[in-house]
């Protein structure tokens, strides 16, 4: 088949058919079939007479067909590898299925090869049905059932069937070669169903194996058709009606598994088949018959049947525990189940019933089921035991409430397992296996002890799945404990009717308050919960040594969850730090751990600072692998959640990122090992830089919040600051007044010098934001600094202090002059206006003159103008913000009152209007929007939105938020991203992998690429550098306490960032654009990217010299000879534009200079 054979590689089909025995067999087939074709119709005596007519006609068709085929084969001998050929062989061989050789051939070569294809087309069905009726060979028949089931299960859309494989060639094309012609699914499915249902309803004992197979095949039909379902229900319940009543046969069935009488064995087989079919039917909780049959199934002798029965019951019990509890009798002797999964379902079932509110009236039932659940903790299988632990902890799916989880923790720590007085059944079953233990175990035991002992021994296992699962259980334990902690249920047991605790169980409060020596867990400490936990955690920690990175990740998650807010987390920190140094960690896993930090924070907001410290390790150790969006969201949520006391520390944790030395050897050595950057490769160096940039931005946006320093709340009149123009005094005063802000400023100032060009820009912008938002002396301090920076005068002083990172620091000292001057202009304007105001006030005071309306109007206009201007740079609450200083408040108030101006009428301002309406749009709260509009924007509300203090902020659809939400909800079965390009696209193509799914592959790739290229507007948040480097700042999706979309910043930043090399042009452009706002054109006049492109001069034209394939999102694929326009050059790359979009739909991007002739 054309699509299946790739000239470059072997296909799966080639591999299979390279079997030396296959070729002669194929040759034999043509001989056989032609010679025996005549005998077909005479052999049709056996099936029912009514079908004979059809059969014989078919036989004739077959004969003609097979003759033509064999003739064709003789002419052109090929191995029967293509789908069409296989289909033909089936038709031929079905006609001669009475012959041993045909059967052998079907079983040995035709059917196995057909299995390679992912679907079976309906045109094969008539032959299969013929085989089904006529053939008696079990092996042939088994395949026939297999393929009939596949035809039934196909949902009609080709290539999307449940099974994988080489895509079957187009069925329409096959219709030509199919002599029967035009067989569609709609034609054959009813015939298949009829034939199979007739078979599965027949009571003939001789054929009961076929009956089972027919029923199974029948169950694979799609559940969409109600007619089908009805039929299936009828058959299944019909069988169960006859075989399900086990009361009299049971004893025999159980204890005489192999040697029972024939009747009971057949009965048990039928029980198995019917329950297995029942399990596949859609769950029908309201149907008493459904439940009744499932409950009967628990007593069947077939272990698989019992498993299915329990799984059905446990599913129904989750929805309707009452009727299940009523329908089930005593379940005591069920513990002897041999099937592990059956016991897992039993645990779930017990959990649902023992926790059901509707059964509160029946404490006897509940206690019976919980005791059963506790007994499962002793199960020899880890799977069952862990499920039981999870159930005790209150974890079933991820939808449990905090109360459930907290209750789970209390249960685990308080409840006691008392085995039944006469454990006669137990001794027969599970418990006998641990007989040496059982004498000890029969004593009433606190659950926690059992669980701890079990987990500890599991952690000594060598099996990775066991370790992984055990770590997961510990994580769940941590979650429940955190929930108990959050609800304060940690130390009070009154909510549950708990039996009095053993004296050796210390009050669990002790754990919360326990501070010293958590690790000295001698035997003395073993009997307290704290002691038990400590010794468990000790074992967990050693598991970090496992060589499997996934196990380690799970262990780290467990440690994060078990971390107590009051304990020292140094150990956890160092574990994580040294783990992250391992390059084996895939980024998806690291992001998972990062998301765990989020979840941990959600559970215990007290831990904000601790978690930030841990997150910092991620930022420093693996900047290239983590998702910057998720990290920033964590910063933000922690900053908000840290409360007034923790804000300072939280901000500090973020700013640590800024202290990172540039990634090169010999950088500052003052930092501890935790903070050493391992950004050795260029990719992570770039990512680190991006992260630093983000941190700078974050700092600018949020420093004022963290420091609680706002200009509009500052009491210091501007005059005071003017007297402190001595820089040293100023800094001293500043840091004494607000160390948080002062240190943030220091860091930003350093970044404005030492970072790369992008970081310096971000730092200057951040500084401006702080300058505008802060009162004196900070504003003045920043003003001074910016002024100096613009002149470049201080560069020499600082240059010695900072290690150069090798980048050109810019000709004019910093290269930031163009950026700084508009910012300085704002501040200049503000100070000038303040001076004017001070002078005017003095004049008025001296002459004892009232302010007249004209003067007030002038003042107010200045105020508004400055306010608009300031709003271009960052978000400020317009009703409160006073660009003219606190003294102007009274005068403006007077003017407003006189003229009846609403305090927050500033909505006319384009920038702020845009910014805030964006916010409102994001929070998608229509009613809030209207209230806000009516009363003007209430600044506090706006701040709250911006800060994400309300939960609505979680409703916005930033990708990071989605991720966190998904994670918290425990969702996600979607496929992981494989960041390694090699595996996605350019795996050496020996693979049928590439070719077999070619159709899916091609369309899929195209879609994906489209999505990725449009990433400029919606920043993607994969952790990989190339996808997000350009989009991050373009999209400005940084979480901010003030404004998630400061429009003016966004645009200007984008402008700068997207054309870093063209200093001169961007400077020009920026000058223009920054002057515009003064002329009142507003924020939008900053010019979009396209404008820049046009204004950035005359693009050179060039020609592609070679083919070039884009390696990242910002790169552009070229074909030789293609004409392009060269926009600019950067570091050996041209940014070029094509005349028309290429095959990938991209118009512009980066290409290596050498690939283009200019």
């Amino acid at each position, binding site marked *: 088949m054309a699509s299946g054979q790739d000239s470059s590689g072997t296909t799966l089909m080639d591999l299979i058919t390279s079997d030396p025995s296959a070729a002669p067999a194929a040759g034999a087939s043509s001989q056989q079939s032609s010679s025996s074709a005549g005998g077909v119709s005479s052999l049709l005596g056996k099936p029912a007479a009514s079908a004979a007519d059809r059969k014989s006609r078919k036989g004739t068709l077959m004969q003609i067909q097979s003759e033509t085929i064999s003739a064709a084969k003789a002419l052109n001998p090929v191995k029967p590898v293509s789908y069409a050929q296989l289909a033909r062989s089936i038709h031929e061989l079905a006609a001669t299925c009475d012959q041993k050789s045909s059967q052998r051939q079907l079983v040995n070569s035709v059917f196995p090869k057909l299995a390679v294809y992912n679907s079976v087309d309906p045109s094969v069905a008539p032959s299969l049905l013929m085989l089904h009726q006529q053939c008696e060979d079990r092996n042939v028949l088994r395949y026939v059932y297999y393929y009939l089931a596949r035809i039934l299960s196909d949902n009609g859309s080709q290539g999307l069937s449940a*099974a994988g494989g080489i895509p079957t060639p187009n069925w329409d094309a096959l219709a030509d070669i199919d002599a029967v012609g035009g067989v569609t699914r709609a034609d054959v499915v009813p015939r298949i169903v009829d034939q199979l249902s007739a078979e599965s309803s027949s009571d003939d004992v001789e054929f009961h194996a076929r009956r089972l197979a027919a029923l199974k095949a029948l169950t694979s039909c799609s559940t969409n058709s109600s007619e089908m379902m009805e039929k299936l229900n009828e058959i299944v319940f019909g069988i169960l009606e006859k075989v399900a009543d086990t009361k009299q046969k049971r004893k025999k069935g159980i204890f005489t598994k192999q040697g029972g009488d024939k009747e009971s064995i057949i009965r048990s087989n039928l029980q198995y088949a019917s329950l297995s079919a029942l399990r596949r039917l859609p769950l029908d909780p309201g149907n008493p018959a459904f439940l009744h049959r499932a409950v009967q199934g628990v007593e069947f002798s077939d272990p698989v049947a019992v498993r299915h029965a329990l799984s059905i019951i446990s599913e129904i019990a989750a929805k309707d525990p009452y009727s299940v509890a009523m329908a089930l009798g005593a379940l005591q002797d069920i513990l002897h189940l041999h099937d592990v999964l059956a016991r897992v379902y039993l645990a779930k079932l017990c959990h649902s019933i023992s926790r059901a509110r509707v059964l509160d009236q029946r404490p006897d039932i509940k206690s019976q089921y919980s005791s059963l659940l506790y007994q499962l903790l002793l199960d020899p299988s880890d799977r069952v035991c862990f499920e039981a632990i999870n159930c005790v902890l209150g974890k079933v799916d991820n939808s449990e409430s905090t109360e459930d989880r907290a209750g789970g923790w209390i249960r685990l720590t308080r409840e006691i397992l008392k085995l039944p007085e006469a454990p006669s059944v137990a001794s027969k079953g599970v418990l006998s296996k641990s007989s040496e233990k059982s004498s000890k175990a029969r004593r009433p035991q606190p659950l926690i002890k059992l669980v701890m002992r079990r987990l500890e021994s599991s952690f000594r296992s060598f099996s990775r799945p066991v370790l992984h699962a055990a770590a997961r259980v510990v994580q769940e334990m941590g979650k429940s404990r955190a929930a108990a902690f959050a609800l304060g249920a940690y130390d009070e047991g009154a909510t549950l009717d708990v039996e009095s605790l053993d004296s050796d169980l210390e009050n669990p409060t002790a754990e919360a308050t326990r501070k010293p020596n958590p690790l000295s867990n001698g035997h003395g400490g073993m009997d307290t919960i704290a002691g038990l936990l400590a010794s468990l955690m000790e074992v967990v920690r050693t598991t970090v040594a496992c060589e499997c990175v996934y196990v380690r990740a799970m262990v780290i998650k467990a440690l994060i969850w078990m971390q107590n807010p009051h304990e020292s987390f140094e150990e956890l920190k160092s574990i994580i730090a040294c783990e992250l140094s391992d390059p084996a960690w895939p980024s998806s896993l690291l992001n998972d751990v990062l998301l765990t930090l989020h979840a941990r924070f959600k559970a215990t907001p007290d831990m904000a600072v601790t978690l930030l410290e841990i997150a910092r390790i991620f930022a420093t150790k693996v900047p290239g692998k983590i998702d910057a969006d998720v990290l920033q969201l964590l910063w933000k949520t922690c900053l908000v959640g840290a409360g007034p006391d923790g804000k300072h520390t939280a901000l500090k944790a973020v700013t640590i990122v800024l202290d990172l030395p540039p990634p090169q050897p010999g950088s500052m050595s003052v930092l501890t090992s935790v903070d050493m950057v391992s950004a050795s490769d260029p990719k992570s160096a770039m990512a680190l830089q991006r992260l630093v940039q983000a941190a700078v931005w974050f700092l600018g946006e949020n420093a004022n919040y963290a420091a609680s320093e706002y200009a509009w709340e500052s009491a210091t009149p501007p005059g005071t600051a003017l007297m402190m123009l001595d820089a040293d005094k100023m800094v001293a005063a500043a840091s004494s007044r607000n160390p948080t802000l002062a240190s943030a400023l220091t860091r930003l100032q350093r970044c404005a010098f030492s970072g790369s060009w992008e970081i310096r820009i971000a730092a200057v912008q951040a500084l401006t934001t702080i300058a505008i938002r802060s009162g004196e002396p900070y504003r003045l301090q920043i003003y001074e600094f910016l002024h100096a920076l613009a002149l470049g005068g201080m560069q020499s002083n600082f240059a010695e202090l900072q290690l150069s990172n090798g980048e050109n620091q810019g000709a004019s000292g910093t290269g930031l002059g163009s950026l700084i001057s508009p910012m300085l202009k704002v501040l200049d304007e503000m100070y000038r206006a303040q001076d004017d105001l001070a002078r005017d006030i003095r004049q008025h005071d001296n002459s004892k003159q009232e302010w007249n309306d004209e003067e007030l109007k002038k003042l107010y206009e200045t105020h508004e103008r400055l306010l608009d201007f300031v709003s271009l740079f960052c978000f400020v609450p317009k009703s409160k913000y006073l660009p003219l200083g606190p003294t102007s408040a009274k005068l403006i108030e007077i003017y407003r009152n006189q003229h009846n101006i609403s305090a927050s009428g500033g909505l006319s301002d384009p920038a702020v209007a845009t910014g805030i309406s964006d916010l409102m749009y994001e929070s998608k709260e229509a009613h809030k929007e209207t209230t806000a509009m009516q009363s003007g924007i209430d600044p506090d509300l706006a701040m709250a939105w911006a800060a994400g203090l309300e939960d609505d902020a979680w409703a916005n659809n930033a990708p990071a938020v989605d991720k966190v939400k998904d994670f918290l909800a425990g969702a996600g079965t979607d496929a992981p991203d494989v960041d390694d390009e090699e595996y996605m696209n350019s795996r050496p193509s020996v693979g049928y992998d590439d070719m077999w799914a070619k159709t899916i592959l091609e369309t899929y790739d195209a879609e994906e690429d489209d999505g990725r290229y449009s990433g400029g507007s919606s920043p993607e948040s994969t952790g990989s550098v190339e996808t997000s480097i350009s989009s991050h700042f373009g999209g400005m999706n940084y979480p901010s306490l003030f404004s998630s979309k400061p429009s003016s910043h966004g645009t200007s930043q984008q402008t700068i960032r997207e054309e870093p090399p063209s200093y001169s042009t961007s400077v020009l452009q920026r000058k223009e654009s920054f002057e515009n706002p003064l002329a009142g054109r507003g924020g939008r006049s900053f010019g979009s990217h396209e404008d820049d492109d046009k204004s950035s001069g005359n693009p050179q034209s060039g020609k592609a010299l070679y083919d070039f394939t884009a390696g990242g999102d910002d790169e552009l694929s070229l074909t030789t000879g293609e004409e392009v326009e060269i926009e600019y050059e950067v570091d050996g790359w041209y940014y070029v534009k094509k005349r028309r979009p290429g095959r990938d739909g991209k118009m512009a991007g980066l290409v290596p200079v050498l690939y283009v002739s200019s």
Partner: protein
Amino acid sequence: MILAVLFANSDGNILIERFHGVPAEERLHWRSFLVKLGSENLKGSKNEELHVASHKSVSIVYTTVGDVCLYIVGKDEYDELALAEVIFAITSAVKDVCGKPPTERLFLDKYGRICLCLDEIVWKGVLENTEKDRVRRLIRLKPPVEP
């Protein structure tokens, strides 16, 4: 739910794959992810040594049997340990069909039978038969327990 069962050879070429409840557009991702996992971790690993991985709420257990790598993806009740049971059932059935830990050639020779075994062990995303003898009987169209 057992989301995927996938056999690949040591070069990462997929021999058999069965998905259940995985949208078609994600299968490619799963394939690449699993094959990558295998290529990174299965080299030099012992026969039938179990490896584990996870992604969000999904567990993955994989191993080698003879020259063939086997990956199983599951969620909900099919966690690492349950998948270990599944993988054990499948490997013992495969060894039973092939008579020994299969070479790639042997595996392909027995391709049809292995597909039938798989059909008996994992059916519609649910674990069905685990016992080797039962599977052996069922793929020969005999009843699970012989009368």
